[in-house]
């Protein structure tokens, strides 16, 4: 049960595991997959309302100072949104939906580094939230018209006169079909189908410009027609390869690579696929093999240690974000359109240093009530109390030997637990 909760959400607390144990596996899975009628945590962390994009006020005649001012304002907005999202991940009660949103963000891997507008990034998150649990068709159709994605992959530069293939290629390779399920000719024809959509960088809105669109006949994946963006998106989403590919990506992130994805995971919508994934016998065998992504590691720890980022002093909040930066996974900033790496790529000497530092910040910020649960145990029992607190199934001899000498120093014990192989790899 703890295994399911660890993977389905950002990191369960001991109390959540207890409640799930009482409810039983079937009821727990149902509860995880059903959106609750109310989510107090989400309600307490509403999406920030942002003022207009600071760039909207700029004209050709704006001065250098005005531009710098607008850039600084944009950075501030992005910082605000990043901090909000981190806080939401910690606060939300519907942990499955929040983690699924992060999955989709890494899947469509759009970075604020190029998009630069907080409003566009928030807009994309809202689109992913709206369609993330449902069937693929509406999701892909919405994403090919998502302004952040269009800016990210040069869609606005893609015109009838000479199509820009960037979006069409990544759409098939990384977002829907996977490599090998389409030809170079499909990329070229797909780019033509996507022509015509432009983003107004001032308002952040997308619009269709007929003049830029290529209305001609196209042949894509063996089908001919006058494909436009929507029809092309529909064609892709309807390919059996798309459902299989996306199910494989879900398996990759939720179950890892140590065990291959079983056949037949793909369901009618994403929630059905996720249900099949968690119900697969092979899923149970993946315990102890999945390297937590840094955001998963940090958000899980924040939840288990009773820390709300928004309640921290600014300096500590910045230290947490600096930690994610050093770990190379900052929300809204995937390194490339291929998304974040996985597995042992996160296990480097560099990332270990960042984890050690961040674990120190987390241990220092741990709520006194949570710390009291550790210190309530007799010194000899504290490694076990720590395992319960961090929802680790148990320590091996190596880690127990590392933890035992720290039992008298609860905050150091906490920090050591957070960097242990058992906690880092779930």
């Amino acid at each position, binding site marked *: 049960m703890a295994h399911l909760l660890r993977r389905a959400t950002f990191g369960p607390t001991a109390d959540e595991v207890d409640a799930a144990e009482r409810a039983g596996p079937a009821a727990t899975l149902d509860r995880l997959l059903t959106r609750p009628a109310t989510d107090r945590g989400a309600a307490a962390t509403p999406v920030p309302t942002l003022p207009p994009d600071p760039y909207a006020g700029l004209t050709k005649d704006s001065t250098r100072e005005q531009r710098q001012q607008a850039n600084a304002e944009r950075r501030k907005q992005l910082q605000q949104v990043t901090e909000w999202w981190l806080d939401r991940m910690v606060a939300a009660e519907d942990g499955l939906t929040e983690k699924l949103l992060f999955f989709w963000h890494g899947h469509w891997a759009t970075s604020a580094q190029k998009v630069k507008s907080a409003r566009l990034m928030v807009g994309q998150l809202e689109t992913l939230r709206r369609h993330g649990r449902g069937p693929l068709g509406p999701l892909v159709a919405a994403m090919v018209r998502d302004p952040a994605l269009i800016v990210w992959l040069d869609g606005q530069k893609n015109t009838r006169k*000479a199509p820009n293939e960037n979006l069409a290629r990544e759409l098939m390779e*990384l977002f829907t079909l996977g490599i090998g399920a389409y030809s*170079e000719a499909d990329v070229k024809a797909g780019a033509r189908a996507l022509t015509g959509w432009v983003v107004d960088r001032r308002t952040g809105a997308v619009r269709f410009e007929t003049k830029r669109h290529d209305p001609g006949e196209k042949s894509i994946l063996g089908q001919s027609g006058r494909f436009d963006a929507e029809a092309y998106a529909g064609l892709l989403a309807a390919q059996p390869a798309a459902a299989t590919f996306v199910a494989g990506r879900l398996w990759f992130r939720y179950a890892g690579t140590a065990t291959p994805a079983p056949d037949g995971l793909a369901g009618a919508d994403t929630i059905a696929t996720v249900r099949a994934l968690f119900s697969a016998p092979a899923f149970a065998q993946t315990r102890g093999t999945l390297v937590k992504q840094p955001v998963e590691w940090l958000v899980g720890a924040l939840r288990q240690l009773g820390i709300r980022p928004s309640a921290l002093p600014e300096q500590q909040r910045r230290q947490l974000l600096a930690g994610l930066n050093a770990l190379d996974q900052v929300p809204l900033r995937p390194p490339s359109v291929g998304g974040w790496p996985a597995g042992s790529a996160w296990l480097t000497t560099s990332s270990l240093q960042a984890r050690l530092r961040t674990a120190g910040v987390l241990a220092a910020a741990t709520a006194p009530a949570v710390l009291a649960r550790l210190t309530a145990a007799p010194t000899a029992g504290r490694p076990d109390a720590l395992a319960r607190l961090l929802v680790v199934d148990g320590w091996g001899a190596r*880690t127990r030997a590392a933890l035992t000498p720290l039992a008298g120093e609860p905050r*150091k014990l906490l920090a050591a637990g957070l960097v242990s192989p058992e906690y880092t790899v779930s």
Partner: protein
Amino acid sequence: MDTVTRRRFLLTSGVVGAGALAAGAGAYSLRDLLDTGGDRDPQSRTLVLVTLYGGNDGLNTVIPYGDPAYRAARPELAYPDGEVRRLDDDFGLNPALAGLHQRWSGGGLAIVRGVGYPKPDRSHFRSMDIWHTAQPDRPGNTGWLGRWLDRAGGDPRLAVSFEPALPPLLAGAVSAGAAVPVTDRKAAKGLPAATLTAFAAAEAGESAARGRAAACFADLRSVDEMIRQVRDSADPDTADPDGEQAPATATGGARTPLDAQLDLVAQCVEAGVSTRVFSVSLGGFDTHADEKQLQAVLLGQLDRALTGFADRMSRTEAGRKVVVAVYSEFGRRVRANASDGTDHGTASDVLLLGAGVRGGWHGAPPSLTDLDDGDLKYTTDFRDVYATLLERVLDTDPGPVLADWRGRVDKLF
């Protein structure tokens, strides 16, 4: 670091082979370590591999300005004859490559033309996987230098990257190179050394990923020790992810400026560390639109970083044993797209400079008119370059690393 200190460090570090731990095989003895990762042969060379992420447009790097087909294919994007930095009557360098042009004139720059692989893949990620693994048919999960590291004893200090995540090319089957952060120079660990040492032990029956997590603790100690002594003069980077030096594109690359990475390499080389391979990178070359200016900015960074590094290296005995190789996962289409950019293409150039490298042209230039679906046909297999580097720089038989690949780039050294 002077020799005596380093020798003492090697004797006392108690390094444990990362790969052996990951495989659950237990620790090397100190004697094993000294036999494998031990003191560096002063004659041995060092390879610095520079990866340009995003697919650098080779035709606007080494420019075939003498070929009318070049200008015909990309009227807006082509450089006029007068701007090209002339190499000969047919080819010239991008105007941003002033320093490299100067090195060429002195015989210090080698250009291998038309480097690629059969059945080119135009996906960044697949193509980069292919370059990292040197397995074009089916990229596996080990990098070519990782496989070299496996055979060289597996000490992570032999193959170092100054990027936060380990580049796949340094991942071996049983060992992995070390990713060393440029930033965060303060140790600030907070946990006692004994705890970190305890975490480094192998645990029987543990998953490979947990074994690797434990091995990181062992690697950290050894690498920390080595790096701490050489990088104190490195510039601290800011923690602000918006502090961009170059325009962002969607295909990644290290965020640390290339010159800062090479500065660390220089310090390590001058200190005589045991590292034989350094991996550095520059990202942002995925220039589908408005390519000319973007590429010029990036090539300017590359030029300044490379020539500054090469000049510095020429001043010390250890530095004169360094070979630099620069590559990207593919070139770009011959024909421009309408956004004044180019889409993903195929074969491109590999640039080399440093110890024993014979300057001038290597390999045949691909034709601009005899194309494969709009793309250049490669003339030199990239494994020829790798095999030559393994043989001539790393003193290794390339056979076991490159699946018995026989090709070489003749007269490159």
